[in-house]
């Protein structure tokens, strides 16, 4: 099928099988390899992207469901001047990225949480990121980074 949708603010059009996973469309057809595949069944969250503002596991979304939709990936998560976002800065400063394979999905999920306007309490951040697995950090520094970015936003 011919799929037309918006990816990171740009109109894109690709010819793909209707059941091709959004993750593969992004990675293979559009060359956006920031979203990763960790499990292929919606458990690890490494492939997290926003679909019309909703956090989804792109490994579970067929291409046909994204027609005319707005998709936001990690590749959009930098300021217009190419500088890291406040959240990305916080990830670096707090040591929230170790091996880094979960990091793009974590940042997409965490930014989605911060944009919701909920107060970034430790509990709320833990709940918001419960769908994103990390095996390196023990989550502590990820939580710290999201809280730091969230608190900086509010002041």
């Amino acid at each position, binding site marked *: 099928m011919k799929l037309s949708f918006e990816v990171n603010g740009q109109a894109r059009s690709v010819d793909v099988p209707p059941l091709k996973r959004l993750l593969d469309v992004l*990675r293979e057809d559009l060359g*956006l*390899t*920031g*979203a*990763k*595949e*960790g*499990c*292929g*069944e919606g*458990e*690890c969250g*490494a492939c997290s992207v926003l679909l019309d503002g909703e956090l989804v596991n792109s490994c579970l979304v067929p291409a046909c469901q994204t027609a005319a939709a707005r998709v936001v*990936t*990690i*590749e959009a*998560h*930098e300021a217009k001047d190419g500088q*890291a976002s406040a959240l*990305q800065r916080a*990830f*670096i*400063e*707090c*040591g929230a*990225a*170790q*091996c*880094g*394979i*979960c*990091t*793009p999905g974590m*940042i997409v999920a965490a930014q989605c949480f911060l944009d919701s306007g909920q107060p970034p309490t*430790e509990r709320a*951040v*833990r*709940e918001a*990121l*419960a*769908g*994103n*697995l*990390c*095996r*390196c*950090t*023990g*989550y*502590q*520094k*990820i*939580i710290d980074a999201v809280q730091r970015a969230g608190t900086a936003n509010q002041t």
Partner: protein
Amino acid sequence: MGEEGFASSETIGRSPERVDGADKVSGRALYLDDIQFPGQMWGRTVRSSVAHGLIKQVRFDPAFDWTQVIRVTANDIPGENVIHLIEDDQPCLAAKMVRHCEEPIALIASDDRERLEEALRHVQLEIEPLEPVLDPLKSTSVFKKLSIAHHVESLASAFAKAHRVVEGTYLVRHQEQMYIEPNAVCATPRADGGITLHGSMQCPFYVHRALQRLLKIDESKIAVIQTVTGGGFGGKEEYPSMIACHAALLAGKAGRPVKMVYRRDEDIAATTKRHPAIVKHRTAVAKDGALLGCEIDIVMDGGAYCTLSPVVASRGVLHAGGAYRWPACRIEGRVVATNTPPNGAFRGFGVPQTLFAIEAHMERIAVELGMDPLELRRKNAYALGDETPTGQKLTWSVAAQEALEAAASSSQYTEKRARFAREKNGRKRRGIGLSLALHGAGFTGAGEVKLKSRAGVELTPRGARVLSISTDIGQGTITIFAQMAADALGISLDQVEVALPDSSRMPDSGPTVASRTCMVVGGTIAKAAQEMARILCGYAAALHGVSEKNVTCRGGALYDGPRAICSFATIAERYLSDRGPLQVIEQYAPPPGIEWDEQSYRGDAYACYAWSGTAVEVAVDLDTGEVEVERVIQACDVGKAIHPVLCAGQVEGGVVQALGYALLEELVMKEGRAQNTRMQNYIIPTSLDAPHIETILIENPYPYGPHGAKGVGELPMDGPAPAVAAAVLNATGVLVPELPITPDRLLRMLEARR
């Protein structure tokens, strides 16, 4: 090189941004599967579904169109059909005999992934089943037997005069590393008949040597290059050799690059796990809690092939007595073969198994004596000058007591025990538990001497480039290496590059394992950088006509006494154009006086040990058996935290992985086959399962480590599981002697007590 050799530093002990941080948070970091290799095909593995049997036929269904598919069996192997490691007993592709489920038998590759899956369904294996051995206690095939005998002549009298003899049996099971990036490689054939292998891995030279044996080609025709690696935890120590050999065979036959990326279920089912173990303790203890002697018997399940099992068992045996003085002891261990997928390296490498046993056993002893477990540990924990079961005298950097006290006091262990004892009502019971652990840093015994690790630096026009084969798998290797070089050369971190681990270009600094990277390789890099600084100072002195002994490198410049004479970059450029390239490679030198006898298992098992005290608070639901971890404090003596943020990151990550081991993670085996091979049913901790973690870094310097540093990678994995068991005991009165402490196991024990 002693600690006094290092002046105060602008970078050591601080936490600069990790050098790969910007790439990782932006999604720009390229992992293996993110890279398109021109003309690449995809590879898949045909595996046995039988645990033990004779291969009668590998049949490629004639009804299927194989013209677009590359097929490889054992007959296609140019060299030896082995995955080279310790024993060379594991075939790359089984040819006659199958020894475990998921054993690779054939390989296929195609341009098209759907066709590949279709092709996989058209390979039929005819295997005549044989009786499998699945119970390690029934196995008669032993990979390695180990024995430590320490003042055993007084063991009988120790048991005779004991106030109590306490016995216990402890059981731990398979644990999956569950790095989020699965095993992945791409093999590219070269015009010279060689092969270039890119992949996610810890040890490029393991892969290099395995390819050499398998392909029977000159080592100069092989390049193994590590790509950004999405976690390892030991799971990418030896296994990448297997998948790399597979991809290389396919690529060789296809004449094109072949990429192999495991699906999660395949990765869980087929790759190495933490060794299951059964540990028996028999302890003689005095009325006042003094440990008088012990007998420990350890059986580990190695799985079907040797892999690293002898070394895992050795480390397990060497740590089995825990961080305690034993006037007399006998420790026996064996690792045996079963018809299950081979077990191998996993963070802790045999220690989490035996450390769980000794620490749970200490809780049992405390109960039998009616003694506070903290008091019991205090009374017996190692102090400087004590002797280990191998007769090693602990002459430096012993922080067992310090780590124990830090965990106890910051968790308010004593107060909380008293409080929880008063609050024994309702459905939820709270408890607190402690553990004490030690972890030998670097290779065991003479391992580091045999390795002869080499690493160094080369001069660049701006600063320096670090040369080693040590890999960053997330722990921050390249950042601390840059810190070490920058510090010794007196330049800023951004003047240092770290070269890509490439086995055709880099010196062999040894495998990235055994908590050795910072202490052993980092120290060697620091030494090489110091030598480079000395050379440059001499060069600058001659150039400026000043005395060499007054010239130093600091703050990005060279100084004659207090006077800056030129910038580092100026002298570097001048040196390079004047004298040509400058490369300094050093070989690791173990500290003096270290002696180890492999035959008798006596001597200095490790040059030094790192120490940890862990306190865990839990809430146990008596109706459901669920254990919630509410708080963890881990105090770790790391010698010196070169980069405190990265160091604490190791502690926090290790603690949560260990909490998974304690409560959640169990690979269920049935007839030798893993049953829960998905993230949906093999559960690792999420951000909600993980508690808030408090890390205390203790710096008791190791005189021969860089700036005093010891290893930290594995230490955090050792203590949390027994601390959880201790906390559950404190909450419920029941000691669960096995892992994981699942609700059904706990409920069964609570029932039995009623």
